[in-house]
């Protein structure tokens, strides 16, 4: 596959330490487009080895607005079914620029390891030095070891190592969309982390037309009212949750976005530093970055102050545990009790949706109504399809439920321009139907 691709699929067998590379066939892209369409294909191909398939969307890391997302496809320890977990922040694009479109991790290692994926090279490395450390210590340790503060990681903490049902794969230091207990799957394979870094070049078939259309779509997006807003509290307000902005505002530091995502979906709060400080903080760990609006709301509904909710989210991110599961199952309403509950957490979490896509993304349109009538079944079907399409093309999932200008037609057009393949609505409909069945 020559365009919008590294043309490489990596298959790593943790049991034998064998690493193989294969080319990404253009025919597979013509049939499955990319992202979840292809990770599902690879998952089924390697099913007997309980695979974790990491991938990127066809548009990931391009000038298509919000082309930030990668994904992890695997069998969820929570649902027992195949799921697709978005890879956000800047981790999703780093997968592609590190040299691979898709990475299949199969088998079980006999000792703790991490995978170091860099500039088209993959290594299985000894993780004994970070096994037992929390997510933040481990990410710090790998970045220091590699001498690169921009190393992007997927990391488990103690929850994953201890095979908690609610263990979450974290990205760099932060919580992730993993509602599926994939941290437990990493832990059961003795896979502590994946670390990505690369300076690859992604070729585009008709680059001038691709960039021209990207900028036209961006121009349309910028007429949207949500472009005057920023951050996670405004998302909560748009979901109909009153009082979140006033509650959170006193500790908000800044808002930031995933790669080329026009709305800043992430909000950093400072807990041990003046939130109004603009100079670099001298405090090593002044706060936490929040991307999980539903977990934040769940802690608020337990009666926590915004500061304690931030501290709970920070503790969850360090431990590598799903904060939404903690809020739902701990039965506690004080910060100390919540943090002390991590080890003994038990029960069944409520996962909204059909279980294929992460309900970390709000299950309703945000800021725009997308022409929906308000019927619950219609909204659920719309959300499932919207997530499927986002995971095929590599679009930031929350942005996909707020931005009608990022239409299927526009994504298909960019994909066709970028690859010179005849990617039609019929093909997309078929891939989506396969993901939703």
């Amino acid at each position, binding site marked *: 596959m020559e365009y919008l691709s590294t043309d490489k699929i990596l298959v790593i067998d943790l049991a034998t330490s064998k690493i193989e590379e294969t080319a990404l066939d253009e025919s597979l892209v013509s049939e499955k487009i990319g992202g979840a369409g292809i990770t599902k294909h690879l998952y089924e191909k390697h099913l007997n080895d309980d695979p974790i398939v990491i991938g990127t969307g066809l548009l990931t890391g391009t*000038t298509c607005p919000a082309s930030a997302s990668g994904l992890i496809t695997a069998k969820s320890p929570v649902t027992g079914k195949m799921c697709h977990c978005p890879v956000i922040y800047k981790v999703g694009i780093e997968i592609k620029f590190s040299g691979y479109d898709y990475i299949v991790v199969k088998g079980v290692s006999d000792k703790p390891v991490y995978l170091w994926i860099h500039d088209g090279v993959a290594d299985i490395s000894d993780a004994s030095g970070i096994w037992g450390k929390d997510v933040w210590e481990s990410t710090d340790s790998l970045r220091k070891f590699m001498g690169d503060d921009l190393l992007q990681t997927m990391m488990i903490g103690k929850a994953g190592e201890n095979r908690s049902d609610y263990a979450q794969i974290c990205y760099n230091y932060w919580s992730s969309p993993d509602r599926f207990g994939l941290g437990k799957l990493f832990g059961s394979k003795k896979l502590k982390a994946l670390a990505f870094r690369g300076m690859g070049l992604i070729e585009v078939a008709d680059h001038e037309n691709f960039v021209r259309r990207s900028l036209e779509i961006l121009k349309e997006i910028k007429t949207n009212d949500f472009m005057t807003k920023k951050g996670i509290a405004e998302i909560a307000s748009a979901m109909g949750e009153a009082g979140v902005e006033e509650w959170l505002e006193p500790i908000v530091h800044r808002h930031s976005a995933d790669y080329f995502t026009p709305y800043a979906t992430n909000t950093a709060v400072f807990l041990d530093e003046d939130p109004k400080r603009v*100079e670099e903080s001298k405090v090593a760990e002044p706060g936490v970055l929040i991307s999980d609006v539903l977990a934040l709301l769940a802690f608020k509904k337990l009666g926590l102050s915004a500061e304690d909710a931030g501290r709970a989210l920070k503790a969850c991110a360090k431990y590598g545990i799903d904060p939404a599961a903690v809020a739902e199952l701990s039965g506690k309403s004080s910060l100390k009790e919540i943090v002390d509950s991590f080890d003994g957490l038990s029960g069944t979490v409520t996962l909204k949706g059909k279980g294929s896509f992460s309900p970390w993304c709000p299950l309703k349109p945000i800021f725009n109504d997308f022409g929906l009538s308000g019927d619950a079944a219609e909204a659920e079907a719309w959300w499932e399809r919207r997530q499927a399409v986002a995971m095929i093309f590599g679009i930031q999932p929350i942005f996909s439920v707020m931005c009608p200008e990022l239409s299927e037609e526009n994504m298909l057009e960019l994909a066709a321009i970028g690859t010179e393949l005849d990617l039609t609505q019929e093909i997309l409909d078929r891939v989506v139907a396969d993901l939703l069945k």
Partner: protein
Amino acid sequence: MGIKIDALKCINCMACEMACSYHRDDGFAFLSACIVVYRAREKQDYFGVLIKEEEFLKVARPEGLEVNRIGEAADPNKKADASVKPMLLREGCDLCEDMDDYGPMCIAICPVDAITLE
């Protein structure tokens, strides 16, 4: 005329970096960009934008603009990022002189209009 950056408006999305490198490489990469979002202080939530011009390295920090003449000794009180050092090997900003339809690509692509011409 040069590039002006409002670091407090910046949302750390890296689109400018991609667009700048595209202008050099006609493909998607970050390798050749003369404008980069510096984001190495992730836990401190400290980010801004760095741009290399022909003679100057400009650092748009949240607290204000810092201009360094290339070749002069760096301020020993400022912590440097190893990942930013390759900037000095890259070509300086040419305001995308060959991009007639758009002007500077970093301005055209910034979703929050944090980058303008001065």
